[in-house]
Structures are given as structure tokens and as C-alpha cells.
């Protein structure tokens, strides 16, 4: 494993993208930063600009307005970047599968590396998911 990849896995900066979620996953993502979970231990930081991001945390059920922006934003991330889909909405679209405003599942729009199910997934689950992702990438 090259040094750069190693460094990437030790310092993944996450950017949070909501595509029409119920806010629960988003709040739990923020929760990961707070004293009880403190993902800065693993070198993770929540960044404000997508140009600094290494990991995209996508939440929500991809509604029409968001989908257009999501495609553009995915282009803007400097590669390599990993996509984490958080919550049931991003995985199976849960309740919203028949909604008139949520036409496409996330994995039809951008390639997803890992799904973290739950409504909302607990912060522990999110951290575990990202750690698993890191192991997966590190192992390959």
C-alpha cells in the first residue's frame, strides 16, 4: 500500500451531502463529531468545501432538485474519493420509493462504496461503516 493511500485512510475528511433526507441522519452525522463519539480521533474532519473532501456522506432519498446538483458535485470532488450512503433512504429509498419526487436510487447516479442502513443509523454504526470501508480499501 502506498504512503499516500495510507495517509488517505488515516485522515479521511468527510463532506456531508443531503439529498432530501429527514434530517435524522444528518444530525447523527454531526453527532459523530461530538464528545461521545469524536471521530477526530481517527483523523476525520467534517469539511465545509467539497473540494477538500475525501469521503462523501450521502443521506436522503435523492429528490429531483438534489439529483441534478449531486451529479455536478460528484464531478467536483478531487479523486480519489469514497462515497458512503447513510440511512435506509439512500439504500432502498425506504418509504419514499413511490414518491413522485424521488425518481432514481442513489447508486444509479453515483457509484457508492458502502451502505450504512438504519433509520437513522446510530453514530456507532456510521463509524463502524466507515472503518469497514477503510479496511476494505486498505486490504485491496
Amino acid at each position, binding site marked *: 500500500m502506498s504512503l499516500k493511500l495510507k495517509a488517505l485512510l488515516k485522515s479521511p475528511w468527510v463532506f456531508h451531502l443531503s439529498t432530501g433526507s429527514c434530517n435524522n441522519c444528518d444530525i447523527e452525522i454531526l453527532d459523530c463529531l461530538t464528545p461521545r463519539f469524536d471521530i477526530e480521533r481517527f483523523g476525520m474532519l467534517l469539511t465545509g468545501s467539497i473540494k477538500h473532501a475525501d469521503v462523501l456522506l450521502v443521506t436522503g432519498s435523492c429528490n429531483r432538485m438534489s439529483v441534478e446538483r449531486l451529479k455536478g458535485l460528484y464531478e467536483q470532488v478531487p479523486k480519489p474519493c469514497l462515497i458512503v450512503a447513510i440511512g435506509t433512504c439512500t439504500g432502498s429509498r425506504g418509504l419514499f*420509493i413511490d414518491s413522485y419526487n*424521488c425518481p432514481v436510487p442513489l447508486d444509479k447516479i453515483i457509484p457508492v462504496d458502502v451502505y450504512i442502513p438504519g433509520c437513522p443509523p446510530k453514530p456507532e454504526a456510521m463509524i463502524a461503516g466507515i472503518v469497514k470501508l477503510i479496511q476494505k480499501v486498505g486490504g485491496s
Partner: protein
Amino acid sequence: MGKTIIPIGPYHPLLEEPELFTLTVDGETVVDIDMRMGYNHRGIEKLSEGLVFDNSTFVVERICGICSTSHPWAFTRAVEDIFPMEVSMRAKYIRTIIAEGERIHSHLLWLGLAGHFLGYNTVYMWAWKLREEILDVMEILSGNRNSYAMFKPGGVRRDIKAEDIPICLKKIDSIVPTLIMIKKAVLDDPVLHARLKGVGVLSYQDAIDFSALGPTSRASGVARDVRKDSPYGAYQEMDWNMIVTQNGDVLDKAVVRILEMIEAINIMKYCLENLPDGEIDACIKDVPPGEGIGHIEAPRGETFHYVKSDGTNRPVRHKVRAPTFMNLPTYKATVIGQTISDATIILAAIDPCYCCTERVAVKNDGGKMLYNGQDLVRLSQEKTERMRRRMGVK
């Protein structure tokens, strides 16, 4: 000279959910504001129309993660208003406990985020650390951190066990000193005062005209609280104060929320200590044709649900109006003439919840969702078990 627009959003660190605010600025001064919604619209109102009444509570819970008690309660009240019927006293108490718990955690969340938006990350971390305690209490009571799934038309889904009550009371008591400490740290900080006082003033008349709700209106001197105006739940059973301040600026909105947290703790404690015995569920069989209105005081203001039934087990129309829907337009009245830096905190002071605002209207076509509802119940049950095991609670 052409105008200059500074966008806030849709993907902006200020906003947890996507939303676009375009500030027209002159230098750093905001001269005009426009809002573009729709990044969060999922059509829940339409979806809800396809679900049976029991399952709709799950959908409305997913209107918003932070208001995951307010919407179900308003919805169940709307359904009960169709009959009309009253639920049992114990169910009312349990509902009140859950709602007040949510109010505390929502206000703490707001306080933390407001600190974060001001670059005051210490407040953010402290408030959210405290919030974790409340979430633990909620997890003991309901089995879940956020979406509690406690409500159903006619009562509540889960009872509160007698042995959980002392644990919860102890935890609640333990957060009071920290809360008072944070209150002092926040409200006596001269820099915060300099930053918040006189900023984003919503006048009394504007609050009336925009029909502002909740803390947003109460900070402007409009004494408006559904819990007092149109009593429901167990709020009549005890004494508590409605917090009203007069200035309408961001500082006052913070004061209202912080003082409300302390009131909420008192209400919650009273309810836990005086929980009456009795049935928790009235087991509704058939909903008669008709229409009902349910409105309750969510942390952000009045949540309003309107349900129309045609006598089948599904609503014909379910209309959801979240408090932010009424509060967000006041942004326009408060932000103009302020600077961009203030614009962000003024926006935050409304405590906007966009997913509520763009909710899902549910009206629909099939029992497909049923599966989902059960799924969620199962999920939340599993989680509760895990949590309980970990915390050593039986």
C-alpha cells in the same frame, strides 16, 4: 451597477439539509433575500394518503428527524379529532414526557448548532454532550435515539416501565447543573452579547403578520404557545411558565429556548413522578368519515395536521404544516440591512427545519409501505435491546 448575489446553500456547512438562500448584497450588507426550496421535497403528503392510519404515524415521523414526536402527535390528535375522542390519562402523560424530552434535545441541538455557526465550537460540543444524556433517557423510554415510534392514534405504542423511571429521573437531574452552567456561559458572555444583541430583530407587528410561531414569536413578545392556548396532553396538570421576551433579536430567541429547556425539564420530571395508572391505548378500530385538525407545540412552534377521512382505513387527505413553514418567511423581514455574518445566525435563530417545511404529504396507493413500517419497528426494537443490554437496564 449589477447586483451581487451571495449564495447560502444548497450544500453549505450552515445547512444540514439542502436549501438555497440567495442574499443580494451591497458590500457586506444584505439588501435583499430570496429563498429557493425544493431540495428536500419528498412528497410525503401524497405518500401518507396511501397508508392506513396506523402506519401513517411512521411516515409522519420521517417528515423530520428532530421533530419526530411533534408530527406523530399532531397527526394522532388530528385523527382523534375526527371522532372526536380523548385518550387515556396515562397515554397523555407518556406523550408529554416524550414531547418534552424532544423539546430539550431539540433546543440543545439548536444551541449547539448556533454556537457552531458563530464559530464557538466549545458551546457546540458542550451542548451536544449534554444532549447525549437526554438521548439516553429517550432511548431508555422509547428504545430509540431519534425516531421514537411511540405514538399511534388512540394512545401510545409502548408503556413506560416503573423501574425505568428512577434511572431517567436521576439522569435528568444530573443534566440540570450543566445546563445552568451553559446558560450562564452563553448568556453572560460579552462577546456573544455584542454579536447577538439587537441583531435580526423581528418586531411584534411582523411576528403577527407573518403568523410566526413558537420561540420565534415568543421572543418578539407574542405570547403564543399551543400548550397554553389550546391545552392538550398533560400540560394542564401542572404549573409551568410560558417564556416570553420582548426584544425579538437573536439573543432573545436564544434566551427563550434556554429558559424553555429548564421548564421542559420540570414538566418532564413532574410527569415521570406523577405518572397515573391506566390503559395506554384505546385501540381504534374504524375511523369515521370526517375531518380533524391536530395542532401541538413542537420545539419550533405550532405543528399543524389536517386529516380528512372517508370512512376507509386510509386518509383522503393529510395536510402537514410545520412551524418552519411559517417562521422561515420572517427571515426576509429580519435579515435585510444586516451583514452576511449576521445573516447566518439570524437564519439559525429561526431554528429552521427544512425537511419539515417541505414535508411529504401522504396520500396514496397501496400497502407497500406496510412492510416498511414493520421493518422500522423491528429495527427500533432491536436497537433498544442492544442499547438496554449495553446500559445494563433490564
